[in-house]
C-alpha cells in the first residue's frame, strides 16, 4: 500500500466544505450579489464548534448518536472513494456496496435522531427523506452495477481505472447514461434544488434541513460537515465517471479531478439558480426517471 492512497480521504476532508462555498458563490453571482467568501463554510463550522449544545428533555441517546454516527459513516465512506487516479486506502471487491451501505447508515441515524425529537415536522422530513432515498437507491445501485458490468470490475478503483483505459467513444453510451443518473442521485441525496431547497426554512417544504432543526452547536457542525463530505463523495463518483483518470497520473490527474469537482459545484449552483424546486409529488417521478436511465445503462452494458 503506497502512502499516496491516503491522499483521497485527506483531500475530501480538507476540501469538501469548499464545494459548498463554490455553490453559494455561484448562486450569489447569478443573483447579482458579491456573495460570501469561498471559505465561509469553514468559518461557519468553526463557529458552530465553539458554541454549546442544547438538548431537549424528550430526546434520548439516539438523538446524540445521530450526528456522531452519521459523520463516522461519512469518514469511513471517504476511505472507499478513489480520487483523480489515486487509489482509495480501502479497496476490495464489492466496496461499492459498502459505500451505499454507509450512506444508508448515515441516513438511518439521521432519521432516527429526527424521530427521537418527537417533533411532527421532523417526522415529516424523515418520512420524505426515507421515501425519496428508497427511490434514489435503485438508481445508484443500477448505475454502479452497469459500470461494474461495463468494465468487468467490482471495485470502485478498478472501475475508474478501466473506464479511463477505454475512452468515451469506445465504451459507448452506458457510462454517460449512468453518469446522468448518478448526477440526479447526487442532487437528490444532497438535498439540492430540483428535489429540495437547502436555503428554505419553511418546514412544510423541506426534506433534509427539517430533520436537523433540533441539533445545535457542535452537533450541527458535525451534521454540516457530514453533509459536505457526502456532497464531495457522491460528486467525486460523478466526476470519476465523466472524467476518468487512470492510475499513475498523480499530479495532473488530481488537478483534473479537482477541476471537475469545481465545475460540478458551479453546475449545481447554476441549476439551483435557474430551476425551481419540483413539487413534492413530482420528485418520485424524477428519481424513478433516474432509475430508468440507470437500467437503460445496464441494458446497454449487457448488450
Amino acid at each position, binding site marked *: 500500500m503506497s502512502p499516496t492512497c491516503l491522499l483521497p480521504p485527506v483531500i475530501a476532508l480538507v476540501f469538501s466544505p469548499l464545494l459548498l462555498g463554490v455553490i453559494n458563490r455561484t448562486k450569489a453571482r447569478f443573483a447579482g450579489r458579491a456573495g460570501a467568501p469561498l471559505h465561509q463554510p469553514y468559518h461557519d463550522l468553526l463557529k458552530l464548534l465553539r458554541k454549546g449544545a442544547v438538548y431537549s428533555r424528550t430526546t434520548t441517546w439516539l438523538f446524540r448518536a445521530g450526528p456522531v454516527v452519521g459523520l463516522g459513516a461519512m469518514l469511513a465512506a471517504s476511505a472507499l472513494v478513489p480520487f483523480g487516479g489515486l487509489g482509495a486506502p480501502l479497496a476490495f471487491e464489492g466496496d461499492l456496496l459498502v459505500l451505499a451501505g454507509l450512506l444508508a447508515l448515515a441516513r438511518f441515524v439521521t432519521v432516527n435522531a429526527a424521530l427521537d425529537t418527537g417533533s411532527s415536522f421532523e417526522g415529516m422530513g424523515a418520512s420524505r427523506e426515507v421515501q425519496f432515498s428508497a427511490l434514489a437507491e435503485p438508481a445508484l445501485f443500477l448505475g454502479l452495477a452497469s459500470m461494474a458490468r461495463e468494465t468487468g470490475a467490482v471495485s470502485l478503483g478498478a472501475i475508474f481505472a478501466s473506464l479511463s483505459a477505454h475512452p468515451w467513444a469506445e465504451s459507448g*453510451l452506458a457510462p454517460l447514461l449512468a453518469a446522468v443518473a448518478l448526477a440526479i442521485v447526487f442532487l437528490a441525496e444532497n438535498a439540492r434544488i430540483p428535489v429540495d431547497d437547502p436555503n428554505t426554512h419553511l418546514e412544510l417544504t423541506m426534506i433534509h434541513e427539517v430533520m436537523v432543526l433540533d441539533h445545535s452547536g457542535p452537533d450541527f457542525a458535525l451534521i454540516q460537515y457530514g453533509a459536505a463530505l457526502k456532497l464531495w463523495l457522491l460528486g467525486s463518483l460523478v466526476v470519476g465517471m465523466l472524467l476518468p483518470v487512470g492510475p499513475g497520473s498523480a499530479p495532473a490527474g488530481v488537478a483534473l479531478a479537482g477541476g471537475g469537482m469545481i465545475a460540478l459545484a458551479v453546475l449545481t449552483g447554476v441549476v439551483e439558480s435557474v430551476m425551481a424546486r419540483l413539487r413534492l409529488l413530482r420528485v*418520485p417521478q424524477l428519481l*424513478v426517471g433516474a432509475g430508468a*436511465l440507470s*437500467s437503460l445503462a445496464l441494458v446497454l452494458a449487457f448488450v
Partner: protein
Amino acid sequence: MNLGLETILVFLVLANIVVLASSRLTACIRAVAAQGIALGIFPLLAHDAALTARVLLLAAGSMVLKGIVFPMLLSRAARDAEVRREMEPFVGYTLSIVFGAAALAVALWIGSRLPLPRATWSPLVVPVALFTLFVGLFIIVSRKKALSQVLGYLVLENGIYAFGVALALEEPLLVELGVLLDVFVAVFVMGIAIFHISREFDHIDTDRMTTLRDWTRRRRAPGTALSGKGEAAGEGGK
C-alpha cells in the same frame, strides 16, 4: 458497433420515457417529433454503403412528415381543443415509467429469442423497436385524452418503422410510401376529429364518451317537445 446508430437507438428509448413521464402534451408532441426525425436519420446511417436517391427520398419524406407536419397538426388540434395536459391518466406517470423499465426488459428478452430472417447490424435494434411498440400501445390504453392516444398511435408507428428499417431494408418504395401516406391521413383525420369532438362535447376525454349513448336515449325519451333541440345538435355534429 456504430456509435451514431447506437446514439439514435438510445435517443429513441429516452424519447419514449419522456412520452411516458410527461403530462404536458406539448412536451409529448415534441418528443414524438424528435423521435420521428431521429428515425428519419436512421436509414441514412444504416445504408452506409450506398446512399441512393430512394433512401434519401424516404428519409426526407418521413422527417418532414413526422418531424414537421404531424407536430404542427397536433399542436393545432391541442390549441383548438384547449388541452395543455393530460389530467388524470388511467395509469399514473411514475407507474408509467416503471412500466417502461419493465417493458424494456421484456423487449430485450423477446428480442433475444425472436428468430430473425437475417442478422441485424446491432443487437439493440429489435428490442428498441419492440419497446417503442409497447410504449405506443401502453399510451393508447392508459391515457384519457384523445390527443394523447393519437400520440401513442404515432409512437407505435415509429416502432413499426424502426422494426422495418432494421429487418427489411429492401422493402419496396411503394409500400413504405403507402405506410407513410396512411399514417399521414390517419393523423390528419384524427386531428380534425379531435377538434370536432372537443367543440361538440367541450372535452376530449375518451372515457367520458361512453355517455354519448345515454345522451341520445335521453334525447329521444321525452319524444314530443324536444325535436327542435335535436335538430340543433344534429347540425352541430356536421
